């Protein structure tokens, strides 16, 4: 049962590792960014999982509810999601510029062109 009790954390680690694998092993820059965003989402799941309380409710004041989930991780991740999209936008516009300068978004071909100069 220990596995089921930590299931959310195990899946978060699995998703983070899949994201890391995409970043390290794939040469396409757009796909690398998709992997990076996947890593980000796994961290969000890790944080939100920590805020859950058994039998807790959504942290909005309601009559008759005495037990709420922890609102602090929610706030931190709310900020992180928006910042994550902003950085993804910068990364994708960098990819567009690289494509204009080199005519490709494959990392290996960019390196080849750099070396041939």
């Amino acid at each position, binding site marked *: 049962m220990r596995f089921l009790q930590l299931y959310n954390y195990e899946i978060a680690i699995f998703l983070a590792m899949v994201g890391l694998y995409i970043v390290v092993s794939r040469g396409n820059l757009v796909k690398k960014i998709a992997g990076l965003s996947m890593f980000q989402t796994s961290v969000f799941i890790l944080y*939100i999982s920590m805020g859950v309380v058994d039998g807790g409710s959504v942290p909005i004041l309601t009559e008759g509810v005495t037990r709420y989930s922890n609102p*602090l991780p929610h706030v931190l991740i709310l900020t992180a999601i928006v910042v994550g999209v902003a950085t993804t936008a*910068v990364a994708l516009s960098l990819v567009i510029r690289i494509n204009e300068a080199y005519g490709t978004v494959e990392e290996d071909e960019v390196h080849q062109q750099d070396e041939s100069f």
Partner: protein
Amino acid sequence: MSLDHAIDILLLAFMAVIALAVVRLRDLFGVAMLFSVFSLLSAGVFTIMDAADVAFTEAAVGAGISTILMLATLTRTAREEKPNVSRNPALPLIVVSITGAMLVFGTSDIPRFGDPQAPVHQHVAPRYIEDSPSEIGIPNMVTSVLASYRGYDTLGETTVIFTAGVAVMALLGMRRTRRRNGQRKDTD
């Protein structure tokens, strides 16, 4: 096991499958679409875990805007990922497996999922839950923490978004003026 927990397990299993599909898929349009589904599933997981505000934001920003940005990039770059011949797939797999094993080992003794006695629920969280409705006057605790107790965090977030906006304009906006200047030289 409650129904909530069963849905949580199912949605997270879906997300794991989609992550593996993204690794294998070479069509980048498909990757963008799968990524949108991935974000939407994570929004569902957040709803199950009582994080309604986070679920809203993830569904709007993660599944919506991120996907649009990725599709906009694909229209200006290649649609297919080229097969990589020079890279050795074994080395990243080994690195990732070792890192993952260490993380699993590191999380093996943390408090179980949903434990009310976990250290994360002991420090400032009780104060936010008990006092914020009377201190700030807003029933939604996430909003009062975001805009009042941790208002400086949100100010910093806004600064980051502004900087990112300036960076995107510097990267993509400058190019247009340069091209226009070039055209002007041609006509001269």
